[in-house]
């Protein structure tokens, strides 16, 4: 396949098209808008459904409706818009429907800014909507991964009847990188036995998330939890760089992951035995992989573009047994590899400790800086 130089947002859109997305519903918001604009042209051209919804709230509910038919459907947005989808996402999860959402994160909270950030980790990974549910969350670090994860996202969403989020940030959405696009998949012609398609020659079906009887709701919730256990067993993904002989490791995802890779390379060139573990599924989280890796390490560094939302998951994964430090820029500031490199050097310099919280030390360092 020929490589194309594409903007992340547009590459993702085309990848979704090739994965057979039948309907796209969205609302403009920077730094995601190119995705919607691309779809506004591409979908009608292929005779598929595109609606620029009146809001993200409407968009997610259009997705909800379309998902009920068993078709591949998606939306995309960025942080504030995603917040508006939380009720809908909880409903879709509660109805056990597949849905794919692309979230191109920006600086927050509030209106914030349109620069790249990772401040929505908790919202996306730990359930921004009400009730007990889990979403599958894939975090690409480059345009090729973003492309590859689209088909994967649809597959996982369908396999586990799950909300699946491709979590990117403004950097990945706006940058151009060469990528290979997959071949165009044929559209689905077979639909699951729960799909609402008109009761032609069969018993009627309905899809709902209400269970006024708590016992029924509990059964539903347990079914979802057991399915989630399957996801945890089968679908954890992460990538390791220079980890074989590493004494230190950086844990970082998405854009922070690729920035860290630059720093790790330089540190290696300086002779520091440091590796990078980059979670790809943020949910399910590669808990065990991090735990196993941590047992061989003298120290860990978590790098994020948030104030340590993933950090807490990493610490829990290591069971607080490995000295860990934290390096972050927040609110839309993108760290340079040099800052990460400094943090690696400082980690190695020590002192190494498992006492206190790495976030507190980071906050103190940031205060001194300013």
């Amino acid at each position, binding site marked *: 396949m020929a*490589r194309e*130089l594409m903007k992340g947002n547009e590459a993702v859109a085309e990848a979704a098209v090739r994965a057979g997305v039948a309907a796209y519903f969205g609302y403009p918001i*920077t*730094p995601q808008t190119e995705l919607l604009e691309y779809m506004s042209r591409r979908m009608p051209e292929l005779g598929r459904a595109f609606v620029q919804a009146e809001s993200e709230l409407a968009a997610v509910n259009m997705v909800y409706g379309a998902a009920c038919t068993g078709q591949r459907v998606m939306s995309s947005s960025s942080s504030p818009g995603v917040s508006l989808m939380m009720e809908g996402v909880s409903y879709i999860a509660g109805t056990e429907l597949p849905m794919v959402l692309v979230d191109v994160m920006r600086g927050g909270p509030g209106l914030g*800014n*349109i*620069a790249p950030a990772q401040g929505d980790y908790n919202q996306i990974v730990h359930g921004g909507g009400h009730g007990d549910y889990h979403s599958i969350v894939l975090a690409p670090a*480059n345009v090729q991964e973003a492309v590859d994860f689209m088909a994967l996202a649809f597959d996982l969403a369908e396999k586990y009847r799950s909300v699946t989020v491709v979590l990117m940030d*403004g*950097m990945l959405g*706006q*940058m*151009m*990188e*060469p990528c290979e696009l997959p071949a165009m998949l044929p559209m689905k012609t077979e639909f699951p036995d729960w799909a609402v398609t008109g009761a032609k020659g069969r018993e009627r079906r309905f899809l709902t998330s209400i269970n006024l009887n708590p016992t029924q709701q509990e059964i539903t919730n347990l079914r979802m939890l057991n399915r989630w256990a399957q996801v945890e067993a089968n679908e954890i993904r992460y990538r390791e760089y220079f980890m074989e002989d590493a004494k230190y490791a950086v844990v970082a995802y998405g854009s922070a992951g*690729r*920035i*860290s*890779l*630059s*720093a*790790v*390379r330089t540190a290696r060139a300086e002779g520091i035995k440091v590796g990078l573990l980059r979670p790809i599924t943020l949910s399910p989280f590669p808990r065990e992989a991090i735990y196993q890796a941590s047992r061989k390490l003298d120290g860990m560094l978590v790098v994020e573009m948030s104030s340590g939302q993933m950090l807490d998951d990493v610490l829990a994964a290591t069971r607080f047994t490995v000295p860990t430090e934290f390096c972050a820029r927040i609110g839309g500031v*993108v760290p*340079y*590899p*040099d800052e990460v490199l400094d943090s690696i050097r400082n980690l190695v310099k020590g002192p190494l400790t498992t006492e206190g919280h790495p976030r507190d030390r980071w906050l103190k360092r940031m205060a001194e800086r300013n």
Partner: protein
Amino acid sequence: MQTEVIIAGFGGQGVLFAGQLLAYAAMDEGKQVTWIPSYGPEMRGGTANCTVIISDEEIGSPLVFHPKAVIAMNRPSLDKYEPMIKPGGVLIINSSMVDRKATRTDIKVVEVDANVVAEKLGDKRLSNMVLLGALLHQLGVMPAEAIEKALRSHLPERHHKLLPQNYEALHEGARFQVVEI
């Protein structure tokens, strides 16, 4: 080997396109490449810049604090990016738009009267090509032909009549020499 280039100027000076062209050319040469712009409404009428990284291996950060090379198409860009260039790096200044000299002595500086050259070539919008020519010449990551090829394959067919002009702009740019200090 990794080479980082920042191209910066006013919106409308062809900053983003010059960067994309560089990226296309590098990709077609089989390199790893990233292109990332500044973006958003605050850029409206203000400054625009993009960062292009060309590398032999998987590229980490698409943003760098110390680029190997900078094209500064206006004064604010020069002020902002000159101090960041790696020692031994390259700074291309559009001297038509910038009213000061470079101050760094540990880098290669090329002053290109790009607007004048472009207007001579009949289209002042070619100044970005002139500067790109100068950059390529100094950088040596790719032959100028790579850019020409990229232009051919990525410029829409209906603009192909402009190709010769563009080639010439690139060549004219390559003729500018490093300023001796």
